[in-house]
C-alpha cells in the first residue's frame, strides 16, 4: 500500500498537483463562498441555478473523462457511452422513486405512481432492493459495468474494431432507448422517472441539498481524474496507447488487447454510470431520451474539442462545449445542432489535438517569437 501511494504521488508532476489544487479551490471553495457568503444583491453573488448548472457540467466532465480513457488512450471509439450514463441515472432514479413512498399522487407506499397508473398490482422483481441506498449505489456501477463487460467481451473477442465497433455501440444505445420507451419495461416509459422528493433523507428542493450534490460531483470528478491519471501513467497506460497505435503488434509481445480493452471499457462504463447518478438528482428527471444515439456522439465531440488522450482536455472540452450550448440554446436554439456539426468538422480537420493542442501550439509559437526577438535585441545591443 505504501508503494501504491508512492506510485500515486509520482503519477503527476508539480504542474498537475498545482492545477488540481487550483481546481479544488475554485470548485470547492470559491463557488460555495460566492453562492452562500456573498449577499444576494451583490454583483458577485452566484445564484443557485448557476450552482446546479456547474454541477451538471461537472457530471458531463466526468463522462468525458470516462470517454477519453477508452477512446483517447485505448483507441476504442465507443458511441454508446450515453447508455452507461443513463443506466447509472436510472439506478439512482429508481432509488429516489422508492424513497417517495406514500407521498406520491396516488399515495401508494409500495408502487411508484406510474405503476399505479398502469394498474400494476405489485413491484416487478428488478425493482427489489432499490429502496436501499447502498444497493442503488452499488447498481450505479454494477449495471453499466456488467453491460459493458458482456458487450465488450463479445465485441473485442471477435476483434471488432474501428468504425464497426462505433456502429454497434450506437445500435446498443438505440436498442436500449426503444426498450426504455416501452411502458411494459417498468421504468416509466416515455416520461421516465421524475417528481423525486429526496435523496438519502435530504430534501431535493433545498438549496443546501443542491450544494451538496454539486460538491459531491466536484469531489468525484477530482477522484476520478486521479484514478484515470494513475492508470494512464502506469505501464498499463503505455500498453493502452500501444493498443491504440498498433493493436496487432501488441499481441506479438504477449499482451492480450482483448483483456486490456475489456478492462478499460468496463471501468469507463462504471465511471459513466457514476456521472449519470450524480446528474439525475441535480436535474430531477431521467427519461429514455438520455439513450438517444446523438447524445453519445456529443460526448465524443466534447472530448475531440478538448483534446483526446490528455484527460484534462476531456474536462475542458465538456465545459467549453456545454457552456456554448447553454448560451446558444438561450440565444438561438435552432442554430445549436449546426454549430455542433461545424465544430466537429473544424476540430477533426483543423485541430486534431483540440483546445489543449491549440494552447500548446500557441505557447510554443510565443516562446519561439520571444527567443527570436531576444536574439535580435542581443544582436542590436
Amino acid at each position: 500500500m505504501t508503494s501504491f501511494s508512492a506510485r500515486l504521488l509520482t503519477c503527476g508532476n508539480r504542474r498537475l498537483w498545482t492545477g488540481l489544487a487550483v481546481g479544488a479551490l475554485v470548485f470547492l471553495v470559491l463557488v460555495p463562498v460566492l453562492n452562500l457568503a456573498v449577499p444576494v444583491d451583490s454583483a458577485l453573488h452566484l445564484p443557485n441555478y448557476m450552482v446546479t448548472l456547474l454541477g451538471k457540467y461537472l457530471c458531463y466532465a466526468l463522462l468525458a473523462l470516462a470517454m477519453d480513457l477508452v477512446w483517447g488512450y485505448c483507441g476504442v471509439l465507443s458511441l454508446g457511452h450515453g447508455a452507461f450514463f443513463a443506466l447509472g441515472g436510472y439506478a439512482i432514479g429508481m432509488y429516489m422513486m422508492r424513497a417517495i413512498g406514500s407521498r406520491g399522487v396516488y399515495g401508494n407506499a409500495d408502487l411508484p405512481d406510474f405503476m399505479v397508473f398502469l394498474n400494476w398490482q405489485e413491484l416487478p422483481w428488478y425493482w427489489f432492493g432499490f429502496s436501499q441506498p447502498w444497493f442503488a449505489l452499488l447498481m450505479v456501477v454494477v449495471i453499466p459495468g456488467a453491460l459493458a463487460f458482456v458487450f465488450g467481451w463479445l465485441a473485442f473477442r471477435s476483434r471488432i474494431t474501428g468504425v464497426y465497433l462505433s456502429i454497434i455501440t450506437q445500435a446498443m444505445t438505440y436498442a436500449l432507448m426503444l426498450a426504455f420507451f416501452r411502458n411494459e419495461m417498468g421504468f416509466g416509459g416515455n416520461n421516465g422517472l421524475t417528481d423525486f422528493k429526496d435523496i438519502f433523507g435530504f430534501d431535493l428542493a433545498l438549496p443546501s441539498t443542491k450544494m451538496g450534490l454539486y460538491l459531491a460531483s466536484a469531489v468525484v470528478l477530482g477522484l476520478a481524474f486521479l484514478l484515470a491519471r494513475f492508470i494512464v501513467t502506469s505501464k498499463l497506460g503505455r500498453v493502452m496507447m500501444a493498443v491504440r497505435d498498433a493493436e496487432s503488434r501488441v499481441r506479438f509481445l504477449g499482451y492480450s488487447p482483448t483483456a486490456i480493452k475489456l478492462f478499460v471499457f468496463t471501468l469507463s462504463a462504471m465511471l459513466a454510470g457514476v456521472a449519470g447518478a450524480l446528474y439525475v438528482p441535480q436535474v430531477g428527471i431521467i427519461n429514455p431520451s438520455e439513450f438517444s444515439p446523438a447524445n453519445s456522439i456529443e460526448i465524443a465531440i466534447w472530448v475531440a474539442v478538448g483534446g483526446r488522450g490528455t484527460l484534462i482536455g476531456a474536462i475542458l472540452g465538456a465545459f467549453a462545449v456545454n457552456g456554448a450550448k447553454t448560451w446558444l440554446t438561450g440565444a438561438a436554439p435552432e442554430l445549436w445542432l449546426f454549430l455542433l456539426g461545424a465544430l466537429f468538422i473544424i476540430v477533426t480537420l483543423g485541430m486534431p489535438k483540440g483546445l489543449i493542442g491549440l494552447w500548446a501550439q500557441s505557447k510554443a509559437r510565443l516562446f519561439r517569437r520571444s527567443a527570436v526577438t531576444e536574439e535580435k535585441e542581443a544582436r542590436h545591443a
Partner: protein
Amino acid sequence: MLDDAMPTIDMPAGPGVLAAGSILYLDGVTVSFDGFRALNSLSLVLAPGELRTIVGPNGAGKTTMMDVITGKTRPDKGDVLFDQNIDLTRLDESAIATLGIGRKFQKPTVFEHLSVFENLELALKTNRSTLATLFFRLSGQQAEQIAATLQRVGLADKARQQAGSLSHGQKQWLEIGMLLMQDQRLLLLDEPVAGMTDAETEATAELILDLARDKTRSLVVVEHDMEFVRALGAKVTVLHEGSVLAEGSLDAVQANPKVVEVYLGR
C-alpha cells in the same frame, strides 16, 4: 503447468515422432488466399539452438510462414509444432508470444508515440495480466537490463526519444532490442537489415551471431541480402512458390541449378 494448459497432439505415430528433438516443426503446411497458394505443403524442421537463414524471391511465402508460426494466419492444412508437441495452430498471437516465440516484422513496427525506453519496457519479460501491468514497477535490475539492451542495440543515447522519430535502421534495431527484452526461445527475424547501411548491416550480423553463439535460443532469419546471409554462415533454406526448393550451405544452394533458374528466370 504449461503442458497441462496447452493442447497437445496425441497421435500415436504422427508428427510427434518426426518432431522429436525439434524446436520448430512444420509439415505439409498450406495457406491459400482466395485460391492462391501462398504456402504449398511447406515442411521445415529447426533444431534447438539452430540459426537458420531463409531466402527466396519476392512472394515466395517467407513472411506468410512467419504469420503461420506466430498465429497471425491459420493454415488450411498441415502441422505446426513448437517444442516437439505444442500445436501452434490452435493458439492465438499472445499465447504464442507467451510460449516463447518472438518476431521482428518485415516492416519495422515499433510504438511510435512511446519513447525508445518505453518500447523496451513493454517488451520486458513480465507478467502480462492486466492488473499486474497496472501495478507494475520497474525494479533496479530491470532498469539495468533495459540499459544493457539499449547499449547492445546502439540506442543508449536515444532512450528518451520518441520511437517514431528514429531512422528506419534504428527502428529495426529497436525492434531487435524488443525481441531481446522478451527473452524468447525462438526468434523470427523478417528482413532485419533492410534499409540499413553497410556498417549497420555488419553490426547486425555480429549481433545475431552473438545471440546464436550460446545455443540457448533458436533463430530464423529471412533476408534478401546475400552478403548478410553469407556473414551469418548458417544453413540456408530456399523457398519458392510456397515450398522448399533447396536446403544446405549457401554455396551449395547457390550452385543448385533449380535455385539459379528461379533467381535468374525472373
